[in-house]
C-alpha cells in the first residue's frame, strides 16, 4: 500500500498536477480525460463544418446549408446517418483485424491530446518528455491503418495502406528533425515549457522548421497534396474502402482528430500555443488551431496530388536535407547566444529560409523528383 502511494505520489509530481486541484490526481485525470474527449469530438465537428463550408466558398458553391442555422448541424446529421448505417464486413476479410483496425487507429489520435496545453498548465499530463511522447504515439495510428488495409482483403485498401506506411516512415524523420530545432531553442521537451519559452513565437525564430513541420505533418495525416493513401481518384478511398457505418465513422474521426492534433502541435510548437493578448488563453489556442487547420483546407482545395515516387523524393531529397541544415543553423545560433535568441535572429532566419528554399529547390530539380523534362 505504501509502495503504491509512493508511486502515485511520484507520478503526481512527475506530471505536475497543480497541488490545489480538487480531487487530487484522480480528479485531475477524470476532468481532463472528459475535456479531451469532448474537445476532440466537438472540434472534429467544428473542423468538418469549416472544411466543408470553406471548401464550398473556395469552389464557388455553398456547401451544406440546410441542416440547422447556416448548416451548423450538418456534422451532427452526418454522424447520425453514419452511425445508423449497416455495418458491412467483406466475406474474405480478416474479421478480427478488420474490426480492431479503427480502434487501434483512433486511440493514439486521442492520446496525443494528453500532453497538449490548453492554457498554462491545463493539460492531462505535463510530461517532461511531452514532445517525444507525441512523436511516439502519433506513429501508432499507422498500425491501425495498415491493419485496415490488410484486414479488408481489398486491393485498393492494401495499396492505400502500403502508401501510408511508406509515407509515414519517410516523413517521420523531417518531422522530428523540425521539432528538434524548437526543442533546442526552448531548452525543454515539455510542451508547456515550450509555450512558456515563446516570447517570440517560434514561427519567427524557426520559419524553415515551421514549413518543414507543416509539410511533413500534412503528409503524416494524409492531407492534400500528400493524400495519396486515400486518393479518391486513384484508389477509391484507400485503406477505408471496405468500411461502413460506425467503423467508417471511426476512421473519419481519426482523420480529423489527427488533423486537429497536428494543428494543435503546430500551434504549440510554433505559434506560441495558448499565449495571446486580451482573449482567454484556451480561446487563443482554439483560434490558432483552427487557423492552422484552415491552411490545410486551403492547400487541399488548391493543389493537385503528387505521385508516390515524388512523395518519397520530396521527403528524402528536400525535407530531410533542409531539416538537417535547419537543425545545424539553430544549434549554432543557440550556441552563440545561450541567454536566449534576440529579435535579430528572426531576420537572419527568415533570410536563411528564403535562400535555402530557393537554392535547394534548384538543386532538388537537378536531383530529380519525378518531373520529366520533355
Amino acid at each position, binding site marked *: 500500500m505504501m509502495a503504491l502511494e509512493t508511486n502515485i505520489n511520484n507520478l503526481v509530481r512527475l506530471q505536475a498536477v497543480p497541488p490545489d486541484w480538487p480531487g487530487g490526481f484522480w480528479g485531475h485525470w477524470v476532468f481532463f480525460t472528459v475535456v479531451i474527449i469532448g474537445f476532440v469530438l466537438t472540434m472534429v465537428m467544428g473542423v468538418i463544418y469549416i472544411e466543408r463550408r470553406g471548401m464550398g466558398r473556395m469552389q464557388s458553391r455553398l456547401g451544406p446549408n440546410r441542416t440547422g442555422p447556416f448548416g451548423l448541424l450538418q456534422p451532427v446529421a452526418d454522424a447520425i446517418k453514419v452511425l445508423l448505417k449497416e455495418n458491412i464486413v467483406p466475406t474474405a476479410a480478416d474479421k478480427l483485424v478488420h474490426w480492431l483496425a479503427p480502434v487501434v487507429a483512433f486511440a493514439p489520435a486521442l492520446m496525443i491530446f494528453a500532453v497538449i496545453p490548453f492554457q498554462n498548465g491545463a493539460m492531462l499530463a505535463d510530461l517532461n518528455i511531452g514532445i517525444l511522447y507525441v512523436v511516439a504515439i502519433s506513429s501508432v495510428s499507422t498500425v491501425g491503418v495498415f491493419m485496415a488495409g490488410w484486414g479488408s482483403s481489398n486491393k485498393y485498401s492494401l*495499396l492505400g495502406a502500403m502508401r501510408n506506411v511508406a509515407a509515414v516512415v519517410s516523413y517521420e524523420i523531417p518531422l522530428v528533425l523540425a521539432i528538434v530545432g524548437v526543442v533546442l531553442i526552448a531548452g525543454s521537451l515539455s510542451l508547456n515549457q515550450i509555450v512558456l519559452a515563446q516570447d517570440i513565437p517560434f514561427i519567427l525564430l524557426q520559419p524553415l522548421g515551421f514549413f518543414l513541420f507543416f509539410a511533413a505533418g500534412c503528409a503524416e495525416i494524409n492531407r492534400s497534396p500528400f493524400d495519396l493513401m486515400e486518393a479518391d481518384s486513384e484508389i477509391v478511398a484507400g485503406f477505408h474502402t471496405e468500411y461502413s457505418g460506425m467503423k467508417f465513422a471511426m476512421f473519419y474521426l481519426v482523420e480529423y482528430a489527427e488533423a486537429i492534433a497536428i494543428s494543435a502541435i503546430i500551434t504549440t510548437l510554433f505559434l506560441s500555443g495558448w499565449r495571446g493578448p486580451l482573449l482567454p488563453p484556451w480561446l487563443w489556442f482554439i483560434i490558432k488551431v483552427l487557423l492552422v487547420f484552415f491552411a490545410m483546407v486551403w492547400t487541399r482545395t488548391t493543389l493537385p496530388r503528387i505521385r508516390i515516387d515524388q512523395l518519397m523524393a520530396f521527403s528524402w531529397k528536400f525535407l530531410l536535407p533542409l531539416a538537417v541544415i535547419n537543425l545545424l543553423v539553430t544549434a549554432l545560433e543557440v550556441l552563440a547566444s545561450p541567454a536566449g535568441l534576440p529579435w535579430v535572429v528572426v531576420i537572419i532566419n527568415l533570410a536563411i529560409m528564403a535562400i535555402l528554399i530557393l537554392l535547394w529547390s534548384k538543386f532538388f530539380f537537378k536531383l530529380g523528383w519525378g518531373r520529366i523534362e520533355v
Partner: protein
Amino acid sequence: MALKTEPFVLNLGPVHPSTHGVFRMRATLDGEVVVDIEPIFGYLHRGVEKLAEQRTYTGIIPLTDRLDYISAMNNNFAYCLAVEKLAGIKVPERAEYIRVIMAELQRIAAFLIAVGAFLNDCGAYFTPFLYMFREREKIVDLFEMVSGQRLTYNYMRVGGVSQDLPEEFLPALRKFVDEMPRFIDEYDRLLMQNEILLARAKGVGILTKEQAINASASGPVLRASGVKWDIRKADPYSIYDRFEFDIPTGTVGDCYDRYRVRVEEMRQSLRIIKQAMAQIPSGPVRAEVPHLIRPPVGEAYARIESPKGELGFYLVSDNSIAPYRCHIRPPSLINLTALREMVRGWKVADLIIIFGSIDITVGEIDR
C-alpha cells in the same frame, strides 16, 4: 532464398471515381507499376446502331444525343450532315451559322468537363472541376434557351435546326463570349504552371506522332502529339471554311500537352463563335424536308471534329424510311486503342491521369 512475387491484378471499375462512367480496366500491377492493362467495354451498350435500323431518319436524332452525352450538339450535327449528304439536302445559311455556333459552344462545354475531370484525376480536389462547371452552366443555359433541354438537346434536324434562335439568345451569347476569355485565363492562373501538375503530367503517357497516327487517334489526342490535323480545316464541313482560327498542337504528346491543347481550343472556339455571330444572316432555319425522308439508294460518310475527335456517321440507304445500316465512328473508343502502350511502365496514379487525359465518354464507346 529469392523473394517470391506475383502480379497483382486490379480491376479498376466499372464503378470507380475516375473511369468517367462505367468503364473497366483490368490492370496487372507490379507493386505500384502498371505491367499491363486490358480495357473492358460494354457496360453501357444499348445497341444504338441496331436501334437506328428500325427508326426513321428523324427518329434517330434523339439516339445520337445519347452517344457522347457530353457533346450532344456535335452528335446531332454529324448525323444530320450524314443524312443531308445521303439525301442531297441543302441547308439554309442561317441554320448553318446556328449549327456552327452550337457546335462550338458545345465544344467549349465538353472541354470544360474534360479539363476539369483531368485536373480532378490529378488530385486537385474538385476546385478546377467546379470552376469549370460554373462556366459550363452558362453554356447549358444558352442551350436551354434554344432547345428547352440541358443535356440531350435534340436540337438539330435534317435540313436545319428545329427552331430559330429566340430573341434573347444572341445578347446572352455575346455576354458569354465577352466574359469567357477571362475565365479561361483564370483556369490557367489556377494550375497551368503549378509545379505539382507539371511534375505529374509532363512527360507522362507519351503518345508519339507515329503511334498516334497508326492507332487512328483523333481530335485533341492526335493534335497533342504534334499532328496538325483538324477536320474543320482539313476537310471543312458545313461553313467552317469561312472562319479564321488556328489549330493548337502539342509538341510531345504527353498528358500536359493534351491538357494544353484543350484549353487553347476553347479560345479558338470562342474566335469562331465571334465571327459566326458577326456574320449570321436572317432567313429560314430549316430546309423543306419531307417528314419521312427517303434518301436514294447509296451510302454516305460524314464526319465532324467533335470534342473527342473524328465523329463520323456511315449511313447506307435502301430508299426506305429507315437507314439500312447506321455505323458510328466513335472517337472515344478508337482513341483508347493506344492506351495500353501509353500506360505500360507507369504507376497507378499515372494510369488514372493518362486515361483522364484521353477524355472519353462511355456512352460513345459502348453505344
